[in-house]
């Protein structure tokens, strides 16, 4: 069993709005080990992005972590001082955002920003930093790194910007990379390249990767374990094999069913989960999924289902699945 590098316990992050309190993250716990890739899946509004930002404590002003614990290598992240936090961000844990073009400061050159990073985190002088930076650019597969070093961000393509960001994480020896939809804004071919790059770097450096995405295909390719989030809570968590092979939560079934595969008949309508996610100001009192769940019963409207280990390494939060009679999944298109 690999070493535990990141641990999150019962994290609750609420947004305090004029019209109420939105429970964006409502009691989320998970563990991340060295060298492991953890996938986080869910719709928009499931809380996956907010949770990933909490790991580096990067929240908007209206948001606050009200409860819970985040431990990095055993140290309590939530009680870090300003100085410790700045050393932690970008060095111990690096975050990659969805839009690579806006992740770099548009009025400074790429090279200057990389050197700034190196100066802050590794204390290198200008000449050293320049060497290291150009090497890092080369190792993420950017052709002619010396020229790119002098360029402004708007002169680079989206894929190249994303590589630059990854290079920055690399040369600061990041132990964990949190990637929030890192390829959504890129072309399909570039997506594959960037993901492959991340995978290779992971093998070389042994870093852990937390990959947030709504793309189940990417999860299958890249991740060891997956957690499915809905309305601020985890509804199912398992290894990738178990999740795709024997999913247990009705929401997961809905997600997997909605993915068209090569074997789907051409003229069949795409399956969707009826309804829309609930208003986060109202959630948390019962199962958040009951109004879209075909199997819901009275108990689902009364109390919150707890996340229970229903098979080795496979956690599910569902009253019905936890009960006497297990539900059987209907025949649908399976991802082999």
């Amino acid at each position: 069993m690999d070493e535990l590098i990141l641990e999150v316990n019962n994290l609750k992050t609420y947004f305090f709005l004029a019209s109420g309190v939105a429970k964006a993250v409502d009691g989320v716990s998970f563990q991340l080990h060295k060298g492991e890739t953890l996938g986080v899946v869910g719709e928009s509004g499931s809380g996956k992005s907010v949770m990933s930002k909490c790991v580096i404590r990067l929240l908007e002003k209206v948001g606050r972590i009200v409860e819970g614990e985040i431990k990095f290598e055993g140290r309590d992240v939530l009680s870090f001082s300003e100085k410790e936090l700045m050393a932690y961000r970008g060095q111990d844990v690096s975050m990659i955002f969805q839009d690579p073009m806006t992740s770099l400061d548009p009025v400074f050159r790429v090279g200057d920003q990389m050197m700034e990073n190196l100066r802050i985190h590794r204390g290198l002088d200008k000449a050293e930093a320049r060497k290291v930076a150009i090497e890092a650019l080369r190792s993420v597969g950017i052709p002619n790194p010396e020229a790119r070093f002098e360029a402004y961000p708007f002169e680079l393509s989206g894929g190249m910007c994303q590589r630059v960001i990854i290079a920055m994480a690399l040369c600061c020896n990041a132990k964990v990379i949190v990637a929030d939809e890192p390829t959504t804004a890129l072309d399909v071919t570039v997506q594959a390249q960037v993901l492959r790059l991340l995978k290779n770097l992971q093998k070389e450096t042994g870093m852990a990767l937390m990959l947030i995405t709504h793309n189940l295909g990417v999860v299958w390719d890249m991740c060891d374990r997956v957690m499915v989030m809905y309305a601020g809570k985890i509804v199912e968590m398992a290894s990738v094999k178990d999740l795709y092979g024997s999913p247990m939560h009705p929401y997961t079934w809905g997600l997997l069913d909605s993915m068209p595969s090569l074997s789907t008949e051409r003229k069949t309508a795409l399956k969707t989960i009826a309804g829309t996610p609930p208003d986060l100001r109202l959630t948390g009192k019962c199962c958040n999924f009951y109004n879209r769940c075909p199997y819901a019963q009275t108990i689902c409207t009364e109390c919150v289902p707890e996340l229970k280990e229903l098979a080795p390494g496979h956690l599910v939060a569902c009253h019905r699945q936890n009960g006497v009679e297990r539900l059987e999944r209907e025949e649908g298109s399976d991802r082999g």
Partner: protein
Amino acid sequence: MQKVILKRLLQLIPTLLVVITFTFAATRLIPGDPVAAMLGEQYDATKVDALREELGLNDPIPVQFGHYLVDILHGDFGDSYYFNTSAMNMIKARLPNTLMLSVTSLCIAILVGVFFGVISARRQSSILDYALTVISLFGVSAPVFWVAIMMVLLFSVNLGWLPSFGMVTIAQGGFVEFLRHIALPCACLAVIPMGTFMRITRSSMIDSLGSDSVRALRARGVSEKSIVWKHALKNALPPILTVVGMQFAGCFAGAVLTENIFSWPGMGTMISSAIDNRDYSLIQATVLVVALAFVIINLITDILYMVINPKVAIDAENGGM
């Protein structure tokens, strides 16, 4: 980009013509007889006709306009009745003083305004922010001539710290005296622009600090100080720079109203005297000169902006104005 510059230059001509026509119409629309005003005490019926002929007031209007244009091209903007010299001479004598005052005030306003605007944005919604926002609101709302009077009342009359009139050049009285005399007028003129700069800097910085790139910088562990003063500020500059140009015109307007209060020998006092003495010719000459100057200055600023930032020129080509 050459195309856009050429377009702007061509647009310049009709604008200048409009300005000149407007002022010309003004000169011919004053109630009363300009000749009578000119002769003043020496009014004599016999001299009236002769003077009229000399001034070309009997010619048809288009011819008069033609003369007017030609005169302007030669730099002759008319004469001042009151000061008994050409308008150009008066302006040449007074302009440097006003410029010195305006430019100094503007510089102070920019430095102080931008600095506090950044602080205000960084500590948004704190007590300091509210206090600074209130101060900037007072700044932009204050009638500049009232502020001038209050300052004179406080610092000169009551406290006796600073002199309230006159200008002293460094050559005349040394640096300290120069500072003492320019302090009040400068402080006074700087009030409104400072308030404006505080507000525009604050709002631009808030946008900048909330942007995705700042969020990404934070995620990389860049210090807050560096984020605010290096990254966010540089990104926030464009709207602030736009305002600088507008404020220069505002400073000039402020000078017109306050120079008189401080007996500062500039364009403002000149205009005040001209108004008091109904010296319409000088007023119109001054207004024309200032307007023409601003049109040309705006054009140069626009062109410079395009040279520095080619993207603006491309937008202008596509947008069209």
